[in-house]
């Protein structure tokens, strides 16, 4: 069983339910499991190992990868995540997951603009909500606003 399967199945057993690995990451049980996994991860923290655990369509694993981080003194994970985040040919979701992995490593500045797009999208959603609420309030108060 690969790291991905081990993580997911172990979290399911430890936590007894349908939780995603990244949601469970900060629980005490998950931290214990992570510490158990780290030695084997660090002994094989190379691109081939990364590829074997980050199949297409599972971009969230880049974020988990960032949480695992690099072997002390190595930059393999950092370099891979930075390259994925900057790859214009990749789907934005995958690039964003890589950027969030870098952020988890304390290296979000390497993909700041990718992270900014996601932040801007959240802000844009908030603007539309505020605009809608003000519009509703204006109707309730009999005020006409020009859109």
């Amino acid at each position, binding site marked *: 069983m690969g790291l991905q399967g081990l993580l997911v199945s172990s979290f399911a057993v430890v936590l007894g339910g349908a939780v995603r690995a990244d949601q469970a990451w900060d629980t005490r049980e998950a931290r214990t499991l992570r510490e158990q996994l780290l030695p084997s991860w660090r002994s094989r923290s190379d691109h081939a190992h990364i590829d074997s655990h980050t199949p297409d369509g599972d971009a969230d694993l880049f974020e988990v990868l960032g949480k695992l981080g690099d072997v002390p003194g190595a930059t393999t994970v950092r370099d891979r995540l930075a390259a994925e985040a900057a790859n*214009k*040919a990749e789907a*934005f979701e995958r690039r964003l997951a890589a950027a969030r992995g870098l952020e988890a490593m304390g290296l979000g500045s390497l993909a700041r*603009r*990718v992270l*900014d*797009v996601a*932040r*801007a*999208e959240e*802000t*844009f959603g*908030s*603007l*539309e909500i*505020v*605009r809608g609420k*003000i*519009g509703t309030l204006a109707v309730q108060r009999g005020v*006409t*606003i*020009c*859109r």
Partner: protein
Amino acid sequence: MSAFNVVSDGPDGAAGTTDDLSTTETFDAYVARVFGDLFAE
């Protein structure tokens, strides 16, 4: 009567800069204007 819109300082947190957001434009238009260089043409 002036148009009603909601604005934000954008990711840089500074007012009056090019990355400011506003409900005057769609999000797709905003991304194309501010972050167009991040994506393949």
